[in-house]
């Protein structure tokens, strides 16, 4: 398959990019191209204009006031190998390893994956788990959208057509974390995946817990009941197991050719138990 004809604009500033987006309702943003280009070639996406943002200065990772500021154009592989991310947001670093393969991560961007909002993708779920927020820029100026408010449905976000995601702000969470994914093959989109961040105080009491699930509904979800079942408790195997049992209720998976919904729902509990256990240093 070959893409239908389109116009190409290489944006030299964020303003120029968002002006182009405002001028062409069906414009598409080209970042890493890992999802867009196949959609173009299959003619499933038929934008009149491609706005290439690869030359904008949006590739950076820096610490800023209790959070990490990650430029939307930061390549996934760069983020994965960033020592700042590894120490300040290890959940993100671990999750990045699960995205496709290295060659894909070399091109794929942090912002691209979040703006694409595939419900089985890792980065939206990590953002949700860590209460990240997104700086977006449009023709009417900038605004900040919380991850919890950003994902509206499969491939659908709170971004207005003229808005560009420019920065991801991830609150620092250097504590215990783990990602458990169930995939058919290494590098595939997860059938279901669980992202866990845990804070345990020195006497073993759980002070904080974040559990997000991807691949289990139209958008990634937080398993708040399960989180509540951990907080304030000593994390014994029984406590963990009981908390994990609360995860499926938070999900609304659908069936597809790879797995029935019920399987995904059940597996979210298994993965949650394993992730929590591994996060706090226990065996699988």
């Amino acid at each position, binding site marked *: 398959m070959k893409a239908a004809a389109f116009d190409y604009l290489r944006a030299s500033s964020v303003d120029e990019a968002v002006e182009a987006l405002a001028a062409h309702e069906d414009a598409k943003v080209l970042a890493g191209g890992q999802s867009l280009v196949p959609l173009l070639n*299959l003619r499933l996406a038929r934008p009149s204009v491609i706005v290439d943002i690869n030359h904008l200065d949006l590739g950076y990772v820096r610490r800023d006031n209790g959070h990490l500021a990650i430029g939307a154009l930061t390549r996934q592989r760069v983020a994965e190998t960033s020592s700042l991310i590894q120490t300040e947001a290890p959940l993100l670093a671990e999750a990045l390893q699960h995205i496709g393969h290295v060659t894909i991560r070399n091109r794929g961007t942090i912002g691209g994956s979040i703006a694409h909002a595939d419900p089985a993708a890792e980065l939206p779920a990590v953002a949700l788990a860590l209460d990240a927020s997104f700086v977006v820029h449009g023709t009417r100026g900038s605004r900040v959208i919380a991850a919890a408010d950003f994902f509206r449905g499969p491939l659908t976000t709170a971004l207005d057509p003229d808005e560009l995601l420019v920065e991801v702000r991830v609150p620092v969470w250097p504590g215990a974390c783990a990602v458990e994914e*169930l995939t058919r093959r*290494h590098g595939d989109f997860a059938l279901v995946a669980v992202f866990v961040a845990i804070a345990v105080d020195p006497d073993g009491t759980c002070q904080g817990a974040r559990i997000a699930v991807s691949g289990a509904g139209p958008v990634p979800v937080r398993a708040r009941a399960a989180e509540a079942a951990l907080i304030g408790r000593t994390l014994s195997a029984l406590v963990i197991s009981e908390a994990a049992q609360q995860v499926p209720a938070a999900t609304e998976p659908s069936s597809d*050719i790879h797995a029935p919904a019920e*399987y995904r729902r059940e*597996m979210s509990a298994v993965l949650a138990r394993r992730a929590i256990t591994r996060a706090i240093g226990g065996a699988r």
Partner: protein
Amino acid sequence: MTEGNGLIGARVPRQEDIRLLTGRARFVDDVELPGMLEAAVLRSPVAHARIVNVDVSAAAKLPGVYAVVTGADVKAVVKTPQPVIWRIIPDMFIPDGYPLAVGKVRYLGQGIVAVAAKDRATAEDAFELIDVEYEELPAISSLQDALAEDAPRLYDEWPSNVIGRTTIPKGDVTAAFAEADVVLTESFRFARQMGTPLETRGSVATWDPFTDRLDVWLGTQSPNLARELFGEVLGLSADKVRVRTPDLGGGFGNKFDFYGEEIVAAILSRKTGKPVKLLEDRAESFVANAHSREQKIDVELAAKNDGTITGIRGTVYGVLGGELSTIGIGPCWTAAALMTGPYDIQNIELNVVCVATNKSPYGSYRGYGLPKANFVQEHLVEQLARRLGMDAHAVRRKNFIPPEAFPYTSAIFTFDSGRYAECLDLCLKTVEQAGWAELREEARAAGKAVGIGYSFHNELTAFGPSRIVNLAGLQHSGFDEEVVRIDSTGHVTVYTGQSAIGQGIHTALAQVAAHSLGVPLEHVTVISGDTDTCPYTGYGTGASRAAAVGGAAVLGAATRLKAKVLRIAGHILEVSPDDLAVEDGRVYVKGVPDRSVSMAEIGDAAYRRIKLPEDESPTLEEREVFDPTNVATSFGCTAVLAEVDRETGVVRLLGYLIAHDCGTVINPLIVDGQLHGGAAQAVGGALYEELVYDGDGQIRTTTFMDYLIPTASEIPPFGIEHMATPAEHIPGGFKGMGEAGVIGGGAAVAHAIEDALHEYGVDISSLPITPPRLLAAIREGSQ
């Protein structure tokens, strides 16, 4: 083993590799001809429909479009429907199929219109201007639907969707079941799968308007056959058709079959007067490439209490597509014909029922029915062992065809030779040396579900003999012709009709020639892939035949050529040829190595400064035609170590060992590679691959995100052990093995999983084994 320099059997690197690995190979898409157009095929978005109207007028006017053809246009110029050359059931209904749909669409993805344009994107733009009016009909997307009493029919002119039936009989199966101590009844399901060569199919056709000659670059495993089929369909004599094959990025059987697109490209070239390139892209490949594997097999096994299998009966349902491929029902028939595998089962009654559905045509894929046959026979052996409380290997040994029983006539084929029990022993010894039993115990002690599974298979190779093949209703031969030439500089060129599809056939044939002539390997060049300059092979490169029959023919030609070399050398050195020997490209007097003449001097004497015996003709070239008197049966035992995650149903393969015998091995490195590649496809077939259709005949798997082939991460480390039982009826003793790896893998993987989950009594009778399905089986077992 013949006399020679030891190159037969040498683990030498492949001559092909440096080109392939450095990106210097040239594939069909690399063929660029002056004035060339690119074509594309508009495919049906519905599975079953009457074509009410096709309006291409707007598309034809699009700038950059040179020609548009519909099914009706194509039908008007072809002389015959698409060839179905396997006609193994004489009274089978063989519907007329055309390169593009005529009147009715019978599967999603069937070609409707083809457009030749200045480039592919323009051709695809033109699709959007084509208006096809379909009157949709109910789609048949499962065997059950096809066989239902009131099922819609694919062919109005045929009374049901069952388009062919036959029975493969031997002995007295009724008596065997009446007298049986034990009867097992099993039903097996195999999903639709396909070979997925990295390079999809394609051709570049040039129809010369002045000479009326068709010159085609084609990604095919069967250039000679393709030439004849082009001729049949287009009404051309063979001399008016040239088929050239560039490098092939994998064949896997898919590229044996002769597809409608080849004819479409030729017709578009004739229409435009320009070369036309027509490639199947990846998205199309999931509907346009031959599918395979989908069968339902219901069988009963009769046995005695001591484990002796006395009979097998049942039915193989071949779930065919909406049209027939080149090989018709081939793999469904071979699944039944070879259902007894390596076992001596005297009473057989196996029905083959071929059923049309609204899916893509069912064609060739590596293994060709044998992976299913093997899965069934090995599953039955394991089940019988469980039922009788015997060790499965004891049941195998009890029923193996013993070495002294060869040649052994099974229901259809005669197996030439085999040492099955020894091969099983070799496999068990290899597993023992690998320490798998200890690994399993340690893993189990740690609470993990780890198991070891086995399968034993035999494989029909060296496909021939021509006369038998013809008698069976196959419209192709099975011989092989090879030409070996020594040039004026003493170097050697082998001309072959076999196709290099990545398997290493150039190296293998070069080794046979170099060995037989006594020249260094690097002095031999192999030329393939051109029907104008290369000799003829019946069938093509498939059915695990190239090295065996090609090797035998090269051996014959080279041996005769060597005799001429010795006569000329004897004339130059003034000694009898009997007193001469050849080593490393020099002919010398035995015992007097200083009295010698080089192959270069002999070449010069035969071509330029003629120094020949009186009655000797110039040049150094021999041609050998080899038609085997029988097929050759290779065999092997596969062992798999697997771990199952009991909570998720995820399977991880930890080890994979094959003990294998393909007669005299030409190059162990190549054989290992062939076994590895086949085993990787077996892993895919066992755990990952499934072409899924929904109830409306819509295919749901049209990308590699949905049709899952195993990647390096899913492939376990392989270990291969060889033994050699030469084929006595094939010069050189070679047997084929191109499909071996894929045949035994599915059963061994399934048995490893069953062993890992032994406490649940899991019984795997369908492939692929996916995590949700396995988890369900575990739960069923634990209830």
